[in-house]
């Protein structure tokens, strides 16, 4: 699928522009992301990858252009179908992992049994009674992934999920993401380590200066 091509996408972005004051972080992005696929979004720092994810998640409003998620133009209406993992952990440092998960699960009307289910799927084996502030950075990342998966979302937006994660955990996370994709979920993953996802990604999307400049099914030379 190339930029501008029309298919029925889970996410449809049309001429999306996002400005912060005089700076344009996104400069007319048009793209569609289909169901049951894993997209890896690449690009140098400042290319607009995180802004694109935040805008799709409904955390930033487009300056111009439109976004439709799961066929609905107002993201808030389908936010229970979206899982978002940001670069920061989005967790309270003073609370334990389980306390964090119980609180966030409550916002989705989900019980604690689902928390345990996802913790087990992510193969997280820390002492969850400890405050998150005492976790290693890698454990925080995985706990953050657990939080994003709590609502069993149809669309998963992951910003740098592998940063500070050891190689074994990264492989386990990759396998989990592939499983989710096989179950029909759509995943948009921003990463600077595309090699980790090379075997499972359906498409690599290359961004430069706020635009999508290339989409390919294989990681090519010139990409990081």
């Amino acid at each position, binding site marked *: 699928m190339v930029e501008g091509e029309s298919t029925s996408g889970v996410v449809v972005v049309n001429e999306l522009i996002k400005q912060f004051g005089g700076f344009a972080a996104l400069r007319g992005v048009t793209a569609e992301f289909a169901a049951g696929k894993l997209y890896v979004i690449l690009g140098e720092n400042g290319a607009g990858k995180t802004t694109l994810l935040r805008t799709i*998640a*409904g*955390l*930033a*409003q487009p300056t111009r252009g439109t976004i439709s998620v799961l066929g609905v133009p107002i993201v*808030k209406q389908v*936010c*229970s179908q*979206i899982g*978002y993992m*940001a670069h*920061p*952990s*989005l*967790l*309270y*440092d*003073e*609370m334990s992992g389980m*306390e964090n998960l119980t*609180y*966030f699960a*409550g*916002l*989705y*009307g989900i019980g604690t049994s689902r928390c345990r289910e996802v913790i087990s799927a992510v193969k997280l084996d820390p002492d969850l009674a400890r*405050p998150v502030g005492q976790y290693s950075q890698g454990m925080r990342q995985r706990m953050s992934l657990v*939080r994003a998966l709590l609502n069993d979302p149809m669309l998963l937006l992951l910003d740098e999920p592998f940063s500070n994660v050891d190689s074994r955990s990264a492989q386990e996370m990759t396998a989990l993401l592939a499983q989710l994709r096989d179950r029909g979920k759509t995943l948009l993953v921003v990463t600077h380590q595309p090699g980790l996802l090379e075997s499972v990604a359906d498409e690599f999307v290359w961004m430069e200066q706020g635009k999508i400049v290339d989409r390919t099914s294989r990681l090519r030379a010139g990409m990081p």
Partner: protein
Amino acid sequence: MSFLAITRATLAKDVRLEWRSKDAINSMLFFALLVVVIFSFSFDPTAEESRRIAGGLIWVAFLFAAVVALNQTWARELRNQVLDAYRVSPAPANPLFLAKAFGNFIFVGVLEAVMTPLFIAFYKLRALGPAWELAPIAALGTWALVVNGTFFAAMSLRTRSREIMLPLLLFPLSIPALLGMVNATTAVLTGEESARFWIALLVAYDVVFTIACLLLFETVLEAE
């Protein structure tokens, strides 16, 4: 999850975080204690003079001390960008606002419970009017401070100098409430007039500003 359940869960989470960190309570107590001690050294009023000025002193001390707690309320939501986790959830905005306001009400209430006996001891206070009226005055006055304070603290959340911005926004708007609190307290302490008018003013102020804050909070939360 219902509106009430989210409010309760968020309030419980905030109380737990404050119990563990004691950021707001400790700062408020030290600040208010300093005000009491400094004022008591600055002048040595007679019992009659004390009754006339104590209302003003006590409420100004609580107002300044409350600003510390109000700034903390949202600062902990900014660490690790946890607020984004709430924003991407299907939970409505107002339970978050109400939970924060109730949380601040509890924290400032604790401050008042600890500091009031000290004020009474330092200024040798004794109410000549109906002392029971001090309870509704305290409750209504505290709510007036925290409801606007919580709202304006959220508004100044994304500004660079939010510690300065909050008092700049809050204090001018709190003048009618402060007049009500001070005059009602003075009326009860001196017994010279009825505090009913000032209590009615506080009720009206609380109702108007609670409704206004609830109507506007979602816009503030979603603002970039």
